[in-house]
């Protein structure tokens, strides 16, 4: 293999070199998912009350609770329920929601596209901006631009999302009347309406995400700029722009894609505050819902989705880092 590291053959060998890694990671991902499902099941079982009690509320009589428990199948031992659920999952059936009384698949399929759309828009806005800010900041290290950007990104990291969201609504919805204050996402809304609806949620999410990614990018690029090879390249007369894009970036890309991957997985599962403020029908609020109503199948399905997305993103980040960096590729 070592002998074949030549220009033309590099991508192919790189991909075939990465394949076993991908296979191994998928295997371990499945084990992780299994463990996570067991942990979620156990811990949520420790919560006081079950779906039957939560559904019936304070005024429930013991007979009612018993009857509903039987109806929901909650009177069976926990292990039986878990194994049943696992069996269903293995066949691709996440079961029925205890509270909403419909298949989990339907409940989730109504929300998942919204969450993906929100995360997608936010990524589209924030990734290029964050990279630009991070790189600009790193190559101007110590300069006025760097200091200004530092202050901006540091304060953006420190500002909580709910503040950005509330201020955004006050300015753009209440005062200027430009954008809707709530996200009204539905199938019958036009693309323009959907974009307008998503504008403020995307803005609120972007502020924090851009700031975090820009900080990571700056750190990674700055770290590389201090290396001897950069000095060497510059001494040999390589233009600075070329040094940054073709020498520094491939080395810095590992930490950057990891930061991007973490931010993206956060956008799917951690957007709960933004979903609440803008009444955005996404997955995060659905999962919180599932916890408060003790709706185990729904909770498990949400947990599996978040876990799977997280593992996939991290895997993609690793693969990208390996493919982008010639030295990692060779290993």
């Amino acid at each position, binding site marked *: 293999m070592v002998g074949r590291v030549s220009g033309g053959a590099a991508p192919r060998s790189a991909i075939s070199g990465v394949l076993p890694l991908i296979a191994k990671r998928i295997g371990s991902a499945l084990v992780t998912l299994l463990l996570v499902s067991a942990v979620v099941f156990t811990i949520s079982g420790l919560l006081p009350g079950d779906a*039957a009690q939560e559904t019936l509320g304070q005024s*429930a*009589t013991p007979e009612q609770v018993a*009857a*509903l428990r039987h109806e929901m199948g909650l009177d069976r031992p926990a292990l039986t329920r878990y194994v049943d659920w696992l069996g269903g999952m293995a066949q691709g059936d996440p079961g029925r929601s205890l509270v909403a009384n419909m298949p989990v698949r339907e409940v989730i399929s109504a929300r998942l596209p919204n969450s993906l759309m929100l995360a997608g828009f936010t990524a589209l806005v924030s990734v290029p901006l964050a990279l630009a800010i991070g790189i600009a900041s790193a190559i101007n290290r110590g300069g006025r631009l760097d200091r200004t950007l530092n202050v901006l990104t540091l304060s953006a990291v420190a500002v909580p999302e709910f503040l950005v969201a509330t201020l955004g609504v006050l300015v753009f919805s209440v005062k200027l009347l430009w954008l809707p204050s709530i996200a009204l996402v539905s199938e019958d809304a036009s693309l323009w309406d959907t974009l307008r609806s998503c504008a403020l949620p995307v803005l609120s999410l972007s502020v924090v995400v851009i700031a975090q990614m820009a900080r990571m990018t700056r750190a990674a690029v700055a770290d590389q700029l201090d290396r001897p090879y950069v000095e060497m390249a510059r001494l040999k007369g390589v233009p600075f722009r070329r040094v940054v894009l073709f020498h520094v970036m491939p080395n810095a890309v590992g930490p950057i894609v990891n930061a991007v991957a973490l931010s993206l997985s956060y956008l799917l599962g951690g957007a709960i505050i933004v979903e609440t403020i803008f*009444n955005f029908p996404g997955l995060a*609020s659905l999962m919180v819902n599932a916890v408060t109503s003790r709706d185990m199948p729904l909770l498990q399905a949400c947990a599996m989705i978040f876990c799977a997305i997280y593992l996939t993103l991290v895997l993609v980040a690793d693969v990208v880092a390996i493919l982008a960096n010639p030295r990692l590729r060779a290993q």
Partner: protein
Amino acid sequence: MDFTRRTLIGSGLAAAGAITLPGLSGPARAVPRRGGSIRVAMQSSSTADTLDPAKGAMATDYVRHFCLYSGLTRMEGDLRPRPFLAQSIESADRITWHVDLRRGVRFADGRELTSADVVHSLQRHLDPKLGSKVASIAKQFADVRTDGRHGVIIRLTGANADLPAILSQSHFLIVPAGEDKPTGNGSGPFRLADFRPGVRTVVTRNTEYWRNGEPYLDRIEIIAIPDEIGRVNALLAGDVQLIIAVQPLSTRRIERSAQHGILTTPSPLYTDLVMRQTELPTGNRDFVAAVKHLIDRPLIKRALFRGYATIGNDQPIPPFHPYFNPAVPQTVLDIDRAKWHVARSGLKGVRLPIYCSPAAAGSVDMASVLQEYGAQAGLEFAVNRMPADGYWSTHWMKHPMSFGNTNPRPTADLVFSQFFRSDAEWNESGWKNPRFDMLLTEARAEADEARRKELYGEMQRLVHDQCGVAIPVFINMLDGHDRRLKGMTAIPLGGLMGYRFAEYAWWDA
């Protein structure tokens, strides 16, 4: 109780003009116009949202159910029930009730409403598998059977003159016979267009509604914005036209806008200080009397609720209730008198924690105010602020002093039986008063209104004088609305006209 159509018309007219709200008064008298589409923001919405009236748990559910279904009776602003789907509901002994149904009412699928539907709708609450929210109230239905195509006979386990009021609750709305899981097929003013639990409900005007000319709005979309500031912002930005549960602090923001107004509903909702009679020192009568005299009610009304409250008198019937007894003397802040009671109880210098929580609206501030005045009378209170999560199961009624919070109940009987009867599960202070229990049973069966008012009056006096519960104020419910939305008045059972605004509201644009 004389419950015929004629009295219905008379009192209905009287009620129509009774409560009109400031800001709505002029144009509200204009003739309602048909048309308009509005969006309403409620407080909560989740996967537990339901189309089954029996399972309604949240205000969002009640609003949805009142849009889609009709009930046998309905409650007006004066807190008296009137026949609705029933033409008459009568009883000679308050045990056996005869319901005569309105003819020609149709469900959304075209079927005619008959007595079988009513029997099904009432009896299903008794099935424990259904999980009805009012199963314990429905237990008094000994027998419900049809009496011809349009007659229903309801036999109760004991006399209860309040049956018409009980049947006005959203849980007892009528669903078609044979439907174990109602799907929105009702005879209400609106029809279901879209229902997504946790996201939204859309209803459109029922063009075949049995009440001529009603309702007025063409379409209502019901969503939820849990965050109060978010709700107010959505109203001010014009994204929604009506919001429920505005905080007193936000009223100024809404009133500053020329296009928006506040709908104030004086309600029997209260946050109360519970002093357990089964424990010491709260079981000491002088201690209870001292605390009741240490509550600065006008201050609580002004500072905590910005004036959006009614002064309370340590008993659960508010001044605007038909059974209110004005002869019970108002307890006022009187530190000297409190000192005298403290001295007599021998509890001077006692240290006692008060458990409060954001779960009981205003309780944390009420506890702090009480702490201040307590120090002046020789009682050292500590304010223990507990998180809202789990407060009801772990702290409420579990300490000598804690705060409770009680939502409006449709009848005086229900609030007294659920919270003050000696053997009630939620007898908050744990007081036991045989005379009160006897009066409660007597009042429930009493047909004569004047006598009933007398009985409830004496019960108010007993609770005020002897019970270990202090009720500083009744808290108003505040809704925000676009000024173009008209026709709304207060029904003190809940926000948004007791959750029934859809039947009355119209759009003036």
